[in-house]
């Protein structure tokens, strides 16, 4: 071993020790340790939500939408109705009367692992980012295919605008890039929302169920539904009771159409040939008959 090689090894050893000290083992860090290889999402614990609608307000603020009034009296009247997300409300809270009392459920884009909306988009305006967020882009042509393809009824169309586009939650992609938490998570007063990598929040969800088996139903909504989502939900009552669809299955939505879509070029190419074949076959027969008669 020469001197040069020796120094190399020693050097890398020192560097390794230094970085090893920085990257402490144990807890995965959120902003510092954000990895491009992981999907990020939010764990929503519906048992913790108190229906204060601060997330709605924060969402409107960070996205430059009209800020809702979240005073006590207003909240009461708003929460009486079942609402849906809209082009100016990317996140909403609904209240459900169940046998375990009133349960508040924040609803927003589920950020599917294999989003139907992104698969349906003709111009690739809807994108699944490598870090989990499903975002929309400016080249939206307003075809509304994403609205049809979404199993959770999330993308909403700006019907009131002259140049309408699709709007929906983008998991605060801007804030994420700057190392911030999504607006709703930042303001939640009960930490009903937990931001983290999908692996982390799934683990945490499972831990909560394991520690409080009486409190939660043993299911994390979004773990397997439509192939898994980045938004996960915990609940104390069966999910049907708080407005979640249980009939979605575990098959990712794009997969329903891929088989068919792959068949399209096959049909396009072979259709003329088939027609030609039939034509040739029938024509030939006619000629034969004519000859026979003639």
């Amino acid at each position: 071993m020469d001197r040069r090689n020796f120094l190399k090894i020693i050097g890398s050893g020192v560097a390794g020790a230094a970085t090893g000290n920085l990257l402490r083992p144990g807890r995965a860090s959120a902003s510092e340790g954000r990895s491009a290889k992981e999907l990020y999402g939010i764990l929503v614990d519906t048992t913790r939500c108190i229906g204060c609608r601060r997330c709605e307000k924060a969402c409107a603020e960070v996205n430059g939408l009209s800020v809702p009034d979240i005073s006590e009296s207003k909240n009461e009247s708003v929460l009486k109705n079942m609402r849906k997300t809209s082009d100016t409300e990317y996140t909403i809270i609904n209240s459900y009367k169940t046998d375990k009392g009133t349960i508040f459920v924040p609803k927003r884009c589920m950020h599917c692992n294999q989003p139907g909306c992104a698969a349906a988009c003709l111009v690739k305006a809807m994108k699944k980012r490598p870090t989990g967020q499903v975002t929309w882009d400016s080249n939206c042509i307003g075809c509304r295919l994403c609205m049809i393809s979404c199993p959770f009824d999330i993308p909403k169309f700006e019907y009131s605008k002259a140049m309408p586009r699709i709007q929906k939650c983008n998991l605060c992609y801007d804030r994420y890039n700057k190392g911030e938490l999504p607006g709703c998570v930042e303001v939640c007063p009960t930490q009903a929302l937990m931001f983290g990598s999908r692996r982390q929040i799934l683990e945490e969800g499972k831990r909560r169920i394991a520690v409080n088996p009486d409190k939660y139903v043993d299911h994390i909504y979004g773990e397997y539904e439509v192939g898994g989502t980045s938004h996960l939900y915990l609940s104390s009552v069966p999910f049907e009771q708080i407005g979640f669809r249980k009939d979605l299955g575990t098959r990712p939505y794009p997969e329903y159409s891929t088989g068919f879509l792959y068949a399209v070029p096959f049909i396009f190419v072979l259709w003329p040939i088939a027609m030609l074949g039939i034509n040739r076959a029938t024509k030939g027969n006619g000629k034969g008959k004519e000859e026979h008669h003639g």
Partner: protein
Amino acid sequence: MNRKLIFTGVSIIYIILLIYGLTTVYSVGNPVLPKKVEGLKPENKISIAHTEIFGKLERPQVIFNHKKHEESLKKDNEGCNTCHPVNKEDVILFDFPKKDTKKDKTSVMNAYHDECMDCHKKKARENKKTGPVVCADCHGKELSSVKIQYPVFEFNFEYHEKHVKKLKEKIGKDDCGQCHHSYDINEEDESLALVYEKGTEESCYYCHEFGKKRGPELTAITKVAEKKGLTIRKASHQQCLNCHLKYQQEYLKKGEKDACPTECVKCHTGKYKTVAELEKVPRPDRDQKDKPFINIENSKMKGVTFDHKSHETYSKTCRSCHHETLNACNTCHNLTGKPEGNGINVANAYHHMFSEHSCSGCHNKKKEEKKCAGCHHTIPAMDVETMNPKKESCAACHSGKKDQLAMPKPLSTAGLDQQKVKKVVEIKVLEKEFEPSKFPHRDIIDKLVKVSNDSKMATYFHRNIQTLCDGCHHRSISEAEAQKDTPPNCKNCHMTSYDRQNLNKTRLLSAYHRQCLGCHEKMELEKGRKCTECHKEKKGRPTEITQMKNQNVVKQNTETIINVWRPE
């Protein structure tokens, strides 16, 4: 010609494939919903289906009106034995059909048809009003989607007391052998095996409920009962109804219509007494000690004086603690566990957290009640697996003092230092948006002390007022705080901002909300559930609650859109 054939063949195959592909894509089947089954009021009717023998029924079940049959038979001076078999000792066995048949589909079906229709035909021959003999008259189509289920009857201690008194009037002495018996498994002559011995009375469930794990001796006895088909249902119908039938006429003459009922719905009312309602009812005396001293030989812990007498009234049955037999716990559970006790050692038998029969399990259940749950829902349960439990907690039961069960004095707030224990605590975490919240610290202490003093169990276990502080000031280590006399502040552990290293860590804002609201929710308090009750609106409240905006994306997008659509 050959070429044409190939062309046609290929194109036909192609079209077939295409149609097949399209149908598979577009024909996703809808799930078939199961039929909705409607629950009927029992009204002395019985559903005859025997799905355990027939499986899926070819024809709809029969809803049999028992009372109607009973009444019409009574007119002809016929009794229960017209339909139900009678054994050698003149005891009516409430079985049907009367003939003993094999338990397979055809024999059971034939037995039913023979018995029912023969009687119906016979009555018709006698020119009496009678029942149907045509299939659909009994197997009505509308009956396939209804269900009749009787609620289980609960023979509580109030009924027991009544029966004991009445029987004493009838017979003139205490004879529990009228109902209670035990089975001598060593007796070879089966007819002599059923014996009664005073002081061994137990619940019917111990022998007549099968399918539960039990010790070797009881298993042998339950096997005999199972062989005879004496389920709890059959055994109690046989035992109760035979006796009721015997005395019913006597009471009817006296004009007591409701005494000795034989009608289904008279017993199966579906109404159950609560523990509180049964509190005053005396429990049967079986020579049990009032305050036994439980001391396990060679165990490390000191003995426990157990207030058996008071605990008797805390549950509806003896079975809730004495789960398999009415013996002392140490008959089956010893220090190392033995087969009779299913291998469960005595430490777990008393302290198992999730058992309904153990001390700790039951106490833990009690702590879920709304008065206790406010604090206890955050406190991890104490069981044998708890690491380093407080000495005082163990000593509350393990006193080692025989026959002494001194109730500790109720808690008092008189000794609290006004300086250290603040009357009102101002919380200013959301100061930007709201006026500071005023937390009535002292009022809450007073309330908790009252709640604790109202309950006998809480008074016994909360011996020190500091115990109540732990309800909110959780995770405090008493040894560490021995030097200081203030429990830790919330801020000492919970940070005001998110911990970026561990986003799951509770921050101060949510610690307050979850602690306060969690307790109010668990205690089912009306107060303090609305935002404005704690947070008074502030004048000139800032509208913004977030720091950073997402407007970059929005702005950029709008700009590009404008560029795209207005290219000038």
